[in-house]
């Protein structure tokens, strides 16, 4: 029997849900609105909600001061590059953990996860020195490498969880059918795990795109991504709120759109195997 919910309860929860959602969304909404205001209006002591003098000049100014497209391309290379590199390493790793586990597999998985529990700043000095000595500072490939490394535990964990859902019989059947390891992975495992691999890819692209700590500390002008691009606008000489907002909007727009269009895939992938 379906549970009965009274109309007033329904209305109450709907209002509450909208209130919480709007509260969470309000900073982003404010940023969007501010991006279209003049600098004077943005810092006016009597703040306006909608832009009184609608203007696009902030976007032009932002592009003039520091090249948006260069940063955007860096972001694309780093986020997709590190995710694809991560998948190439993680697919065989997750295969062996899911289908040929040893006594230590569980420990290795926990250890990998534990690296994500440590604050990144704890390894700042060693990583910085290594990057300096290997001449990786402010390079796109250096940044791709560090992004691969910090997201690898999550990629391995996600793939491991998806692979565990695949019946081992099917992989054994492939072995009996004459498939060597490479064919077993490329012809059978990967096609069957496509939903899982896709959501892993999406999530990690988003994580890498939004990563700010390492991007800001390890890059300056040349290899900076969009997160570095935003931070360059929070200038200490004075607040240019409108320009900062315009820069932020430009930086988050692509990933927001990607997330919007792929949310079905993301949800399906993240709940993969939850319901048979």
């Amino acid at each position, binding site marked *: 029997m379906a549970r009965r919910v009274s109309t007033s309860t329904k209305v109450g929860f709907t209002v509450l849900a909208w209130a919480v959602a709007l509260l969470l969304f309000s900073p982003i909404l404010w940023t969007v609105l501010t991006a279209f205001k003049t600098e004077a209006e943005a810092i006016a002591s009597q703040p306006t909600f909608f832009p009184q003098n609608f203007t696009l000049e902030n976007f032009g100014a932002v592009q003039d001061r520091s090249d948006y497209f260069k940063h955007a391309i860096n972001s694309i290379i780093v986020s997709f590059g590190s995710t694809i590199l991560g998948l190439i390493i993680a697919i065989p790793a997750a295969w062996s953990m899911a289908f040929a586990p040893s006594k230590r597999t569980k420990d290795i998985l926990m250890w990998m996860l534990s690296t994500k529990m440590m604050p990144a700043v704890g390894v700042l000095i060693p990583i910085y020195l290594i990057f300096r000595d290997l001449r990786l500072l402010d390079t796109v490939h250096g940044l791709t490498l560090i992004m691969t490394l910090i997201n690898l535990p999550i990629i391995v964990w996600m793939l491991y969880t998806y692979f565990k859902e695949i*019946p081992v*019989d*099917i992989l*054994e*059947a*492939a*072995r*009996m*059918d*004459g*498939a*060597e390891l490479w*064919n077993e992975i490329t*012809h*059978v495992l990967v*096609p*069957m795990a*496509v939903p899982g691999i896709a959501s892993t890819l999406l999530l990690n692209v988003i994580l890498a795109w939004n990563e700010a700590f390492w991007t800001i500390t390890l890059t300056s002008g040349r290899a900076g991504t969009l997160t570095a691009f935003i931070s360059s606008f929070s200038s200490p000489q004075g607040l240019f709120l409108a320009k900062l907002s315009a820069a932020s909007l430009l930086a988050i727009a692509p990933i927001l759109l990607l997330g919007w269009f792929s949310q079905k895939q993301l949800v399906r992938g993240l709940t993969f195997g939850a319901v048979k």
Partner: protein
Amino acid sequence: MGSITLEHVNKSFGEVQVIPDISLDIKDGEFVVFVGPSGCGKSTLLRLIAGLEDTTSGTIKLDGQDVTDAPPARRGLAMVFQSYALYPHMTVRDNIAFPLKMAKMPQAEIDKKVDYAARTLNLASYLDRRPRALSGGQRQRVAIGRAIVREPKAFLFDEPLSNLDAALRVNMRLEITELHQQLKTTMIYVTHDQVEAMTMADRIVVLNAGNVEQFGSPLDLYKKPANRFVAGFIGSPKMNFVDGPEATKHGAHSIGVRPEHFKLSTTEGAWKGTVGVAEQLGSDTFLHVQTDGLGLMTIRTDGDQTFKHGDVVWLTPDPTRIYKFDAAGKAI
């Protein structure tokens, strides 16, 4: 060719010894069934032959060639799994073609073989479907099709019919037996169902706790069981066992009589008892008789008998069909 030889094969999982020491000689073209209760090591033994598990010690030979360390892909055997293990992302055609593709066969030849297999197995109209759009029986046929196209040295079946309903199971049993007669390729078939074992096998391997209790033809096992375990496992309903003074009379530690080897009377006989449950199957009637002092016995009699609960009956075992066992359970 497909003769399979196991020499002192041993398998342990960590501390647990699943197969202590097995030696078997399976001839080319034979249909051999591994049968035994669950956990007896029959599936493990099959997986060792397949190469899906590594032996702890011992040697496995295919056509006289040592394949103990060869990976499954190099052994040239085909396997049919209980779960069918079809590739869900491929059509039936691609499923059947997969082993040929792995063998890098030219496409024209693959098409020819897949079409032939599909016609043999009545799958021609399903070739472009995905496995999830097929019934259980059809899926199992695809799995068999995938196994036969590559003309393996031997087929390995791991309880292939346990997921099918009873009627389909009988049909598929016949189909597999016919397939064997047609292909004359070595087949090893694992089951816990002794009826499947008896009806399909040229020879049966009865396994118990990782040991071979007996290896012989179905009728050998039925008529001359090597020990009490085999006597109890082969034959349905189960053999009746009697211990104590009644067995000593026959010079044995225990004796066994099959349900079909009794003479039944309402007036006289060797053992007196009362009918508990009478199971009427139409063709046969199974009587579960509580005997005086000898325990519960199952009797098979013809379907026209109308005994019912509470009737007093006399049982006389056929003296030429009494099986005798010593204290260790070995047949005397």
